[in-house]
Each structure stands twice: as structure tokens, then as C-alpha cells.
């Protein structure tokens, strides 16, 4: 049976609530961009099909580039602001086990969600410089975090993940002599 490699114990246990680092956040953001663009593309396609069905004429939003850009920005704003306001995490963040909290660690407010979304746009305009705080700042906060008064933490239950991995070893009957050698430190 193929087994997924086990991460070291110090990477998996007891990290819930710790400040999240650059790679996790970057990957989660990339997933969000992919997801939001996917939904946007699907929405535009559905709109085109609906217009064609009702009017009989073909309509393509991409023919009106400024309008398409406004709709895209508005959609991205709604995508991030709404999800942060509702649960403190986007789809990508949920997949990668991250959550936005206040600097104290409490759930963020709707106002902070909106500010963070605006801040994210501004941070993107800095061509990456605004994200350097994730690596060099003591609370791993980027420019958008400073604007909204937020921080990003690991949210997934790493201890449960470790137990799940151990469970995959199929119990004592299936353990070979090298089990402990392969096991986490």
C-alpha cells in the first residue's frame, strides 16, 4: 500500500493558533485566486448563455474590457470580504488550514474584513513589498494586516492529523519491524 510521507512531529503537533508563515499563505492565496477566477469565468459564461437564450443575440462581457475589469474587481472584493466577514477564512485558507483573526486572536469584524480586502488590493499594488512583513515582522503581518488590524494563524487541528497518520499504519497487526524507524520523531 502506498503511504504518504509523514511530516516531523514538530511540524504537526501544537501549531494551532500560531502565526502562519509565507508559504502557507501564498499557496492559500493562489488557491483563492484560482477559485475566484474559476467562479467568475463560469458566471460570465452563464451570463452569456442566458443573454443569448433570452434575446437571441450573442453577448460577450470580454468585449467590454473596462466593464469586465470592474465586474472582476467587484467580484474579487465580494469573494474575499464576504468570506472573511462570515468565517474569517476564504475557501483557499480553509483548505490550507488558515484563519484571519484580530491581533489579539479574536474573530474579525465585518469592517475589518472589508478593510483587509481593500488592504489586499493596495498590498498587491506594492508589487510584493507589502508582503515582506510575513517573513520579517514579528507577528508575520503583511500590509493588509496592518491596515485592518488582523493577523493570520494556523487553524487546523494538527494533533488530529498526526493521529490520523498513525491510524493509517493499520494498527499493530500490520506493523513491520521498521515501523518505529519510519515513524515521526
Amino acid at each position: 500500500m502506498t503511504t504518504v510521507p509523514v511530516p516531523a512531529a514538530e511540524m504537526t503537533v501544537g501549531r494551532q493558533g500560531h502565526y502562519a508563515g509565507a508559504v502557507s499563505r501564498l499557496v492559500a492565496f493562489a488557491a483563492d485566486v484560482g477559485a475566484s477566477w474559476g467562479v467568475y469565468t463560469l458566471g460570465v459564461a452563464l451570463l452569456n448563455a442566458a443573454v443569448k437564450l433570452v434575446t437571441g443575440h450573442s453577448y460577450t462581457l470580454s468585449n467590454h474590457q473596462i466593464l469586465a475589469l470592474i465586474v472582476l474587481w467587484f467580484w474579487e472584493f465580494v469573494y474575499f470580504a464576504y468570506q472573511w466577514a462570515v468565517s474569517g477564512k476564504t475557501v483557499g485558507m480553509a483548505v490550507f488550514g488558515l484563519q484571519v483573526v484580530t491581533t489579539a486572536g479574536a474573530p474579525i469584524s465585518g469592517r475589518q474584513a472589508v478593510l483587509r480586502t481593500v488592504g489586499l488590493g493596495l498590498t498587491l499594488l506594492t508589487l510584493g513589498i507589502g508582503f515582506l512583513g510575513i517573513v520579517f515582522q514579528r507577528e508575520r503581518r503583511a500590509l493588509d494586516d496592518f491596515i485592518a488590524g488582523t493577523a493570520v494563524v494556523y487553524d487546523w487541528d494538527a494533533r488530529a492529523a498526526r493521529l490520523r497518520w498513525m491510524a493509517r499504519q493499520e494498527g499493530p497487526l500490520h506493523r513491520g519491524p521498521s515501523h518505529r524507524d519510519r515513524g515521526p520523531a
Partner: protein
Amino acid sequence: MSPNPIGIRVEQLAQALAERIVSLVLEAIDIDALIDRVDVDKVIDRVDVEKVIDRVDVEKIIDRVDVQKIIDRVDINAIVDKVDIDALVEQTELGSIIARSTTGVLTEILDVIRAQGVGLDDFILRWGNRLVGRGGRVAGWPDGPPLLIEPKSATQ
């Protein structure tokens, strides 16, 4: 009791005699030997346990027990600290049950991806700060927001 004074004296004499005889008999009897000869199992068989239980007021006994006092005296943290959960999971089939009931391969792959992400996060943080010449000082940074993480000084 007899109203006759002679009768009274005879009765007293008989009483004293009887007490003396009983005392002598009891001294002469080897109680241990007697108990050894008793078939206890037979006696127990004759006892109607159900009847005894029926006569016990369990509710009354429970009412008298101060459960909170018992719980207060138990140090649950000490018990939990003594339990090696990892070893427990390894030794039992519990692990397999957890695996089959709560997760699929997808979840485990996700766990690994997340854990690898955490590892890379640490790597980038460590090397990034080493590049700007403050590698050692990073160790004193807070792990997380105060509401989610105890301050390092409190845990050390």
C-alpha cells in the same frame, strides 16, 4: 415470675447456673473448627440475594454520596498526563477505527500538504531573518496572538 420467695431464689439459682454452663460450653467450643465445618457455599445458596437487594434503598445511598467531592479529589490532569496517547493509539485498533470512520486519503494528503507548508514557513522565516542578521532573536518572537497562545514566559 413466681410470687413465692423460694421460687424466686430457685429461679435466680437456675439463671446463674445456666449462665455459667453457657459460658463453660462456649469456652470449650473451638469456633474456628466449627466455622471450618460450615459449608459457606451452601449457606450462600440459601440466601435470596434478590430479596436482600430489594430491601436496600439504593437511591438513599446514592443521595448520601457527595459525587462532587469525589471528583474534586481526583486530579484529572495528572491522569491525562500519565496517558501516552500515541502509544495507546499504536497498541489498539482505535487508530484503524479513526482512520476508517473519519478520514479518507484526500484528508491525509491535505494533512501532509499543510504540514509541509508549515515546515516551509519555518524554513523561510528562519532563513529570511538569518539573511538580515537577526536569526537568534527570532526565537523570542511570540508564537501567536495572546488569546490563542500562552505567552512564552508563562510556559517556561
